Structures are given as C-alpha cells and as structure tokens.
C-alpha cells in the first residue's frame, strides 16, 4: 500500500494510530490523582512532541543516513518561525501562507549553508554549520532586530498591516477558520482528555512527513545516503557524485526543520531568536542520538523524552513531593523528600543529564535499541546475552532500519 512493503505499511498504520490516539495515551492517570502530575496529554506539550518529532525526523535524514552531523539546524527552525509570524503580520492569521513560506525560505537558506558547509566533512562540517547558525542567532538577537524584534521575539501588533484580515477573521492562528487553540474536552470517569485542533493539525502533518521519510529511507536515494556514510571513496569510484546527494539531504532536512519552526509559530504566534541558538541545534542532535540515529522512530521518541522532562519534571516542586509522600511518617517523609529533591523541579536538568548518560552507557543505539532488547527478551528472541560497552573493532550495527 502507498508504495510501501507490507511490513512498512503495518508500521505506518501503528504510527498513525499512536499519533492520533496520543491525547488518550498520554493521559493515563485520572485527574486529581497524585500521579496526574505525570500526565502529558495537554495541547501545548502534545504539539511540541509532534513538532519536535518532525524536526528530529528531518534531522535524522541528514545525520542518520549520511552521518553528516550538523550543529546548526536550529537556524532553519528559527527561519521557519520568523516566516510564519511575518505572514501573520502582513497577511492574516491563516497559517498556510506562512508554512509554505517557511518551507521555501528554509530550503533556500539550507541550500546556501549546505552548499558552503558540505565542502568539508566530519568535524569541519559540523563547525561550519555551527558557525552559520550562531551568526544567525547573534544577528537576529541584535542587529537584525527590525526583522526579528530581537530579544523580545517577533510577534503580531495591532497596527500591523494584516491586509487579508477583516472584522470576521479569527484573531489567532487558524487553518481556514479552524482555530489552533480550540480544544474539545471529554470527561470519562475520572479522566479528562483534551482533543486540540492545533495538535491534530501538527499530528497530520507529522504523519505525512513521517510517511515521506519512510519512503526516503526505502528509496534508492536513501541507500545512496547510507553508502555515503560508509565509504565515499567507493562511492566516487562507482561513478556517483556524493556532493549533490548530501546537499539534497541537507536541504530536505532543512525544510523539515523549517516546517517544524513554522508549526511552532502556528501553534503559538511568536518567534524568538533563541530558537536559533546552538543549544537548540544541540537539542535536536541529542534527541536523535538519544532515540537512536538512523532509525525511523527513534528521533521522535528522543524528542518526546527530552520535551517530557523539560516540561513535566521541571514542574514538580517540593510541595508536590510532600503531598506524594505525606503518608509516610514525618521524619521519613522529610528524608525521602530531601533525597528526591535535587532531581526534580529546578534539578530537572540534573535528572536529564543522568538519563543521557544512562541511555548511552546501557543502551548503545538509543531508546529504540532498548525497546528492541526488551521486546526480544519478552519474545525470547535473543539467543545470547549482549555485552554492551565492550571494546572491539566491530560493533554489530543495528542493521534493521525499521522500528
């Protein structure tokens, strides 16, 4: 179906199901229960999962397939966001023109940066992309303020032209009248589920671009990209010019990033310069590696993982801790809270840092690898125990590019 093998079709259907059911799946705990803190089924976070998922999928097309590690992809994220907000300011709150512009501008920007940076490989390439992105960030923060509104971030003001707006037009981002901020809340038992337009808008786009990336992975083009990663000498002597292939991959992943940036601004009509900073570029690198570079679903998982910690763990404060452990005797309660305290709330990044380390140490190959192992353990597939972290010239590479 859809030009996919049977296995891939099943895979895609599972992904579609999971994506559409996210508002339910991420809300496993009843409202008001102590564990409700861990629910993630609210619009903003779900949107972020989808959007950063798109960002990471795109990044993976470049990094996972060709091995070129870009440290400047946030630049395209930023460009995408600015494009969309400018379309709000000039035309109207309909997100479509902005998204189209976001993809076009980020493609052009990626073409420019990629054309120059791809003259080098390895770490030299990474630093070139980093340099471009950091220049973009620094300029956007200061000198380019007329274009970017600097520190404050680009936003819509009432005196902006908005030439396509009339009195009846919605006053917030929408897709032909479907308001992004609107949600339907459904209460079932103690549970509350929020079905948000914006999320579904992102989710459908995410599914489409996921499908496209699946096709790319399975295409001759995808194989060429993996070949480039393995042996450029052989590539050359086989009569293939690696440059246009890598450039195409770079531009495609830049467009994914631009689309993701555009969607960020479609959900929330603001574009800040920080989106271009190296930390943002680094974040997508981390997402991809954490989930499993070169796998289809890994980067999305990695994105979800990081965003979850950032948004859920940072909000657990001592008060909440005390309420969880209030059943314990006073002294014990205080002791437990004292022990857990450094890892939550303002310590969320400590926890994230520790988890980064654990994942790479114990699950080389990322979360997907971990999932595969658990799956194998359950189904009894693995015949011999793996020895992670073992030094050796050859690391059996995960050859399956599904999951």
């Amino acid at each position, binding site marked *: 179906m859809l*030009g996919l093998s049977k296995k891939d079709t099943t895979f895609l259907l599972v992904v579609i199901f999971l994506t559409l059911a996210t508002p339910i799946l991420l809300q496993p705990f009843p409202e008001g229960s102590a564990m409700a803190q861990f629910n993630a089924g609210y619009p903003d976070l779900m949107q972020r999962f989808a959007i950063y998922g798109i960002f990471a999928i795109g990044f993976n097309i470049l990094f996972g397939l060709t091995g070129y590690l870009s440290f400047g992809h946030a630049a395209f994220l930023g460009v995408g966001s600015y494009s969309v907000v400018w379309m709000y300011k000039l035309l109207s709150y309909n997100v479509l023109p902005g998204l189209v512009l976001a993809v076009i501008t980020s493609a052009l920007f990626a073409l420019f940066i990629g054309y120059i940076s791809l003259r080098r490989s390895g770490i030299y390439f990474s630093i070139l992309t980093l340099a471009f992105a950091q220049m973009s960030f620094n300029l956007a923060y200061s000198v380019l303020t007329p274009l970017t509104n600097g520190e404050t971030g680009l936003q819509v003001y009432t005196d902006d032209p908005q030439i396509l707006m009339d009195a009846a037009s919605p006053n917030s981002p929408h897709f032909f009248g479907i308001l992004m901020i609107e949600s339907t809340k459904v209460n079932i038992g103690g549970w509350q589920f929020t079905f948000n337009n914006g999320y579904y808008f992102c989710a459908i786009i995410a599914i489409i671009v996921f499908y496209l990336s699946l*096709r790319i992975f399975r295409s*001759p*083009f995808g*194989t060429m990209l993996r070949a480039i990663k393995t042996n450029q000498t052989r590539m050359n*002597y086989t*009569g*293939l010019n690696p440059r246009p292939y890598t450039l195409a991959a770079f531009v495609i992943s830049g467009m994914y990033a631009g689309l993701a940036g555009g969607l960020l601004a479609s959900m929330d009509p603001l574009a800040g310069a920080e989106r271009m900073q190296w930390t943002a570029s680094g974040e997508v690198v981390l997402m991809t590696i954490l989930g499993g570079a070169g796998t289809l679903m890994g980067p999305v998982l990695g994105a979800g993982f990081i965003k979850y910690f950032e948004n859920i763990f940072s909000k657990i404060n001592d008060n909440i801790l005390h309420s969880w452990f209030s059943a314990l005797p006073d002294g014990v309660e205080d002791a437990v809270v004292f022990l857990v305290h450094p890892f939550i709330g303002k310590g969320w990044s400590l926890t994230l840092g520790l988890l980064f380390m654990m994942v790479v140490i114990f699950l080389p190959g990322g979360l997907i690898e971990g999932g595969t192992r658990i799956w194998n353990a359950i189904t009894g597939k693995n015949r011999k125990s793996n020895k992670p972290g073992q030094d050796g010239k*050859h690391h059996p590479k995960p050859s399956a590019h599904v999951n």
Partner: protein
Amino acid sequence: MGILEVSNVNKRFGGLQALGDVNLDIAEGTVHAIIGPNGAGKSTLLNVLVGKLIPDTGTVMFNGQSVLGRKPYEINQLGISRVFQTPEIFGDLTVIENMLIPCFAKRDGAFRMHALKSIASEKGIIEKAEHMLSDVDMTNKRGMTASSLSRGDKRRLEMAMCLVQEPKLLLLDEPTAGMARADTNNTIELLNQIHERRDITMVIIEHDMHVVFSLAKRITVLAQGSPLVEDTPENIKGHPKVKEAYLGEAAA
C-alpha cells in the same frame, strides 16, 4: 590505436620518481597485465588512470578523451571501473545493497534523486544484482553486512560491484591477493568468462604469476617507475632481466 593511451607520464613524490616516462597503449578487448617489483609504481599508475593522482607531465587518453583532471566519478561514468588493492566496499550495507548501488550508478548517472521510489519496485536492477552475485557465488551471503565478510569475500564482492557496471575498461589491483587457491581459480575463470562474454578490456596488476599467465594477453613489466619490457606472456617468462628483477625462482 588502443582504448587507453598513456604517453610520457611522469610523477614525482618529493625526491622520488614514482613514474618516469611511462608510455602504454592498451588495445581494446585485451587483458593487459602490469607486473613489477614492489614499489615499482604500479598502483601509482593506476591512480593516475582513475583521476586520483594528476601526473606532473604527460597525457592519458581513454577512447580519445583525456581523463586527466576529471573527478573519479566522471571517469567511472566514462566506463572505467577499479578494484582496489585493499577492498573498498560499503561496510555498513548488506551485500545485496552493495550490489545495487553500482547498478543505479550505471543506469542513472552521477546523480539522480529517486527519493520517493521504493527499491523493491526496481525489479530489473535487483535481478541484475542478484545475477551478478550468483556469478561470483555469493548468493547465500546476500543479507550479510559487508564489513563482517572474510577478506576473500570482500574482494569478491568488490569485483562483482565493478563487473555489474559492465565497464569498458576494468582496472584490477591485485584482485586475487589473499584468496584461497580454489577461489583464485574461480576468479580466473570468472574474469575469463566476463572477458569473453562482454569483451571488457582489463588491466591487471598482480603478483601471483599463476593468475597473470592464465589471464594476460600482454604484459608490461614496470621497474622503478619505467616500463622495462612489454611483450606476450611466453616471452616475458623467459626474459632474463625480468627473471632477475622480479620473478626469481617462480619462473622455474
């Protein structure tokens, strides 16, 4: 006039004259061996032929076109394929994927973006690749990751990747080094078959005299960067200078 003409090629590395006044004329459809002591400049000459090295002076014409200054992929697109002294394959890819890539390169040229086409739908290409794999007797390894092949198998794979492109000129740098005797014989047979069936011109560099004498129609002996003699295998065998500088007891 030959398919490949090398005239007056010189190449220096610092103080070392790696190639000195090399002239070579390789006739279309022949199998031409280049032999010579270690460090004689054989691999260097090959590197000049494929555009990896640019000689200090001289010209190299392939089918009437100069190959100098062209990128390796352009030279391949002209119809020259190369097998390396240490196998260059796509280690992370499976054997069959390794085979598909040269097939695409042959069909689509140096760059063609089939981003949304599925490989599975490329029936013709897959068939061609499979066929070649069975020719080199590696069908049962089609799903293996190439880097975990044994070295003899890596060589065989590389050769198959070159042959599947049906080049006009095939350059082989010690194609049977490290191969078991039985496989060496198979390879000789394979190359002979290919040569007959497809009429590919081959240039072989090889130290295994058994291979050289089984395949070559003409032999050039290179010594210290310059051709010593060029002749038929029979004459080379008996040539006293060659015996002394190169063959040693093996000639016996």
